[in-house]
């Protein structure tokens, strides 16, 4: 049998620095790969660590008991002591405050928030700051984005057509759920099967948007069933990655090459997800929904009535159809295109009406009809919708697909779970709700581990298991296996409270360490796996924006609602196959947090993607942190970034004090929360001097652009340069 892909294999030559345990695993892999006959007989017989239920290890004893604040610290310190290493000093209070703000709510502290903390000399000032931040509604925004990465959330349908969609109520649900500290097990059940819960609430139905974040192909001529199946494939794969940390998707076409998951088991999981309808749910009281439907019905009868009074309308409509360019045709909805595709005499009444409606609504020759229709529609209540899952009364027939090819179905498959994991209870219903409850069962060896690991990764830049999306046999081993298990069991014991987990990590001494490089560690632990210090982490794409908004004072802190359209460079939208409209938001919506920026999958906002926001094509469990010239160009030249600089300059001149020194401190502090050092002040002062000199001696065009609020144009321009510098600092976009 020829393998389909050349999956990675290890060679003896590449093993040199791999630990012994891994070497043993490797040799097993080699045996698996080397053989020709049945694979299952060659799988490792001993249970892989991650498939065994986590024990509850006791925090180890340590000699430096002073340093430990909680159990996390004892696990970390015990390992450091074993390696004869000592932890780093604690970060200074300003650094710690900014770190907590950025990690917990994704915004830097304002000056008054910072002062409040610095003035607070009580021994538990730090812990109380953690509490305040966990109670902030912005906590849900910050950590909501963490979850939306996993949920592959976006505001458009993807593929080549990439039409906008409305699913932001799901995004807001995530934010609300996290703010309310909805226990993680309920959080998961609502998202996977909220629609099937007894007496399901509106909120629980909205939550099922989780698995509606798959792409929808709206190209003409496609086989819809093919793409429906593709989205179910994605749901199975995402469920495996998100809740089990397993690469189950590998088993779509063949038995998993490394983990004990068979292709048949893939389709057993598929069967759970194969029975849902994919409707849009209106979000309004029933009477409003009725009213809206009534008005739409009136519009339909109005349009139906037109040919009776004006039979020539059909000819005009056909002429219009002929006149459309291919691009205009492509931009029509699929329904309209399908109507166009049928020759007029053969068109059903329904298709005729579809085409006529398009003509009436779009062509300028129908002005009076258009105004009649819009008069009617003005009475219509605006009803938001969101995409949900709804279980079919009768399950679909699920079959095993040979090589994962939907055109090659084989025998029927019943819902079931991989044999290597905990058993599916015989009493549970074999449906999505049963699966959701099976996932959150305390017997599940993976979900708590996988989740705490991903939370940990946000605080330290790397998970305890580095391969956060693969806890299978190919994944890396945990650096602190006992800590991982302790955290996982603690998470469950604390009733799956994410806020408790955040509190635990954020309050630990491990977290509070300074992130300075330590010479003595560079040889023994160059990648800081043992955590004898904190790490400097470049901020996430949305937070880079939020810091700019906050430093400039432009930030609009409003929560939730439909996505918004901040400025972006010209020409971005024409990169997609269908040119979508980007109508830049006016007023306060221009300055909303990055979380709310409309995300087109085909043409994402460049300042998000350049800072590694995920593409939302599939689940993302860890972002890259790249560092490129394109990021520099964005922070330097992007019109949005420049707007921040102008605003920061204006604010500095108006509110930053009377002297240059006060003003420099003010601007600097707004970006990095600390005052500049003498050396830093010197650089900025020199720049200010040079700028003022050039701007006032040469006759620059700048002087024709008056500063805001009657500010002196030259001075304003010079301070804009200062603002650009501080907004561009590495420190500004870094959590120290």
């Amino acid at each position, binding site marked *: 049998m020829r393998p389909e892909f*050349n999956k990675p294999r290890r060679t003896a030559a590449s093993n040199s620095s*791999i630990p012994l345990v891994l070497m043993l695993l490797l040799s097993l892999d080699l045996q698996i790969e080397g053989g020709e006959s049945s694979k299952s007989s060659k799988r490792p017989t001993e249970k892989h660590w991650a498939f065994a239920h986590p024990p509850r290890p006791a925090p180890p004893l340590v000699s430096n008991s002073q340093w430990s604040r909680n159990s996390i610290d004892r696990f970390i310190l015990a390992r450091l002591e074993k390696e004869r290493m000592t932890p780093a000093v604690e970060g200074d209070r300003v650094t710690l405050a900014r770190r907590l703000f950025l990690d917990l709510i994704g915004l830097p502290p304002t000056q008054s928030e910072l002062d409040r903390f610095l003035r607070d000399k009580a021994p538990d000032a730090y812990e109380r700051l953690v509490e305040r931040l966990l109670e902030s509604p912005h906590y849900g925004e910050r950590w909501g984005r963490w979850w939306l990465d996993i949920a592959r959330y976006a505001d458009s349908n993807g593929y080549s057509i990439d039409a906008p969609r409305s699913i932001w109520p799901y995004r807001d649900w995530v934010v609300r759920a996290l703010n309310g500290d909805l226990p993680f097990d309920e959080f998961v059940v609502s998202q996977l099967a909220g629609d099937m819960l007894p007496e399901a609430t509106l909120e629980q139905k909205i939550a099922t948007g989780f698995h509606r974040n798959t792409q929808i192909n709206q190209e003409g001529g496609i086989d819809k069933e093919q793409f429906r199946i593709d989205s179910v494939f994605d749901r199975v794969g995402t469920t495996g990655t998100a809740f089990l940390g397993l690469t189950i998707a590998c088993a779509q076409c063949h038995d998993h090459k490394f983990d004990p998951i068979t292709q048949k088991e893939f389709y057993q999981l598929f069967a759970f997800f194969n029975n849902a309808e994919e409707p849009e749910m209106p979000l309004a009281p029933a009477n409003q929904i009725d009213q809206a439907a009534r008005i739409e019905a009136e519009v339909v009868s109005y349009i139906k009535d037109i040919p009776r009074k004006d039979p020539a309308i059909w000819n005009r409509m056909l002429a219009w159809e002929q006149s459309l360019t291919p691009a205009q045709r492509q931009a029509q909805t699929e329904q309209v295109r399908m109507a166009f595709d049928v020759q007029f005499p053969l068109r059903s009444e329904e298709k005729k009406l579809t085409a006529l409606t398009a003509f009436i609504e779009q062509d300028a020759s129908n002005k009076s009809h258009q105004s009649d229709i819009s008069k009617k529609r003005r009475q219509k209540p605006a009803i938001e919708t969101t995409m949900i899952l709804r279980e079919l009364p009768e399950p679909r027939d699920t079959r095993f697909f040979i090589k994962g090819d939907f055109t090659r179905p084989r025998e029927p498959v019943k819902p079931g779970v991989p044999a290597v994991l905990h058993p599916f209870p015989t009493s549970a219903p074999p449906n999505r709700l049963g699966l959701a409850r099976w996932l959150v069962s305390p017997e599940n060896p993976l979900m708590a581990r996988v989740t705490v690991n991903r939370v940990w990764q946000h605080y330290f830049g790397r998970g305890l298991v580095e391969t956060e999306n*693969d806890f299978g046999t190919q994944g890396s081993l945990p650096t602190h296996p006992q800590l991982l298990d302790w955290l996982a069991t603690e998470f469950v014991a604390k009733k799956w409270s994410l806020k408790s987990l955040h509190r635990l990590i954020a309050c630990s001494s491990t977290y509070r360490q300074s992130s300075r490089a330590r*010479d003595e560690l560079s040889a023994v632990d160059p990648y800081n796996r043992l955590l004898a210090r904190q790490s400097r982490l470049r901020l996430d794409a949305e937070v880079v924006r939020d810091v700019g908004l906050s430093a400039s004072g432009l930030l609009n802190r409003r929560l939730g609602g439909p996505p918004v359209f901040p400025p972006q460079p010209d020409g971005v939208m024409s990169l997609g196959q269908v040119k979508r409209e980007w109508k830049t938001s006016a007023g306060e919506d221009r300055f909303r947090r990055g979380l709310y920026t409309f995300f087109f999958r085909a043409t994402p906002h460049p300042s998000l993607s350049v800072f590694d926001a995920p593409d939302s094509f599939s689940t993302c469990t860890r972002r890259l942190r790249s560092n490129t010239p394109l990021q520099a*160009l964005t922070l*330097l030249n992007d019109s949005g970034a420049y707007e921040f600089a102008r605003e920061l300059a204006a604010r500095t001149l108006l509110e930053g004090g009377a002297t240059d020194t006060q003003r420099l401190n003010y601007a600097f502090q707004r970006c990095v929360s600390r005052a500049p050092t003498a050396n830093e002040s010197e650089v*900025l002062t020199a720049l200010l001097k040079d700028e003022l000199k050039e701007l006032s001696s040469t006759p620059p065009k700048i002087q024709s652009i008056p500063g805001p609020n009657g500010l002196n144009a030259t001075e304003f321009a010079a301070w804009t340069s200062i603002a*650009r510098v501080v907004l*561009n600092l590495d420190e500004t976009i870094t959590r120290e």
Partner: protein
Amino acid sequence: MNIDDLAQLEPLKFETRRHFFSKCAIGLGGIALSSLLRGGSELSAAAAESSAASGLKRTHHRARAKNVIHLFMAGGPSQLELWDYKPKLVEYSGQPIPESMLKGKRFAFMDSSFKNRSTLLGTRRRFDRHGQSGAWVSELFPHMAARVDDITLVKSCATNLFNHAPAKLFMNTGSGQFGRPSMGSWVTYGIGSESRDLPGFVVLQSGPRGPRGGAVNWASGFLPTTYQGVPLRSTGEPILNLSTPGEVSETRQRRTIEAVRQLNLARLVETGDPEISTRIAAYEMAYRMQSSAPELIDISGESKATLGLYGIEDGKPSFARNCLLARRLVERGVRFVQLYHTNWDSHGGPGETLETDLEKVCHDVDQGCAALVQDLKARGLLDDTLVMWGGEFGRTPMGESREKTGRNHHVDAFTMWFAGGGVKSGAIVGETDELGFGAVNDRAHVHDLHATILHLLGLDHTKLTFRFQGRDFRLTDVEGDVILKMLA
């Protein structure tokens, strides 16, 4: 005075950094330092991981090629209409496929579209022998026919995957899965770039739409993103946000960036985080790109003769213009240039016929390809520059009937050509059976091609590795043999 000169005047600060890096003992830091000191453009890996193992910046053996231009014919050109002349296939055209040829083979849409319906399809294109080498070339490539003595045709190419996006990834990264670095990333990671002013790996696109899969084709995977391909846009600003805000003069921009550099440098010394040195280098590169990228795409200084050679019509984006830009990029020291041209997917449906559509796409590229080889040769650049042409796979000897005639995807045999950079001139490597189903000798699998390309660049494909998730990865995975017959 530019930023680099300023840097030279600040020995004290550099001394501080030298001190820091020497104490730090992170191999990568050393690279970053040397790059900064030289003002070089290798934005060395920020992720310090594993750099010590393979952040080479020097070759394993003497390089034959310095640069690569990859002309990626996205969609899978039909070798049977272009390069691989099969008179027997013409003779048997319309007959069923010999069972022996199908045994154990897999094709795209295998069950759904053609297994029971399709028959052998002989080409309707006229082929002639050309040049000293006497290579058969189809009438669709008149310009390339005149250049056969400058190229090596490899007729026995083979790949593993038969759907577009995974197959493109495979051609680029040696794997059909996301997350592996592309060839251009491996090469710039391995030997850096000689361009001080432009990224080391640049991507240009033409044709009706972008290649399927998009940016993953030139992604750096687990390598630091410094090594990812940077696409140049064909209209408007070549790179988003390349221009300084309108009211900021050139001097003011430079001064701003210089202040950012000084403050970042102070922070680097304070924190010891090598990521900051990468950021400093990124700002320097960004600044230089602001003038170098517009200069690059401004072809008004090219002679009429040159524009005529390529067949460039004034100002319009086209494959031919991208070929000229490719030459300008390698002239400026850019290591790896990739040109994508769509659409070569000749299934026979609308826009995909072997009749008119193939003719059009051939016409799109023929003159540009030939001009590029000729121009590089005339300027003495071809010796150092490896030009490669090909798609992600080939097409079947069977026809496919949709509305008109086409061919399906074929992984077992297709043709690519290579020129310059240490490959033979006027040679043919590999041969397919008389119907064109598979190689009968010198099978050149994608892994072998990758091994050969790295070899020409002075890199041993078994030694260019990156440790990721506990394993040393290579472009060629655990496969690949250098195709000695291709080497001059």
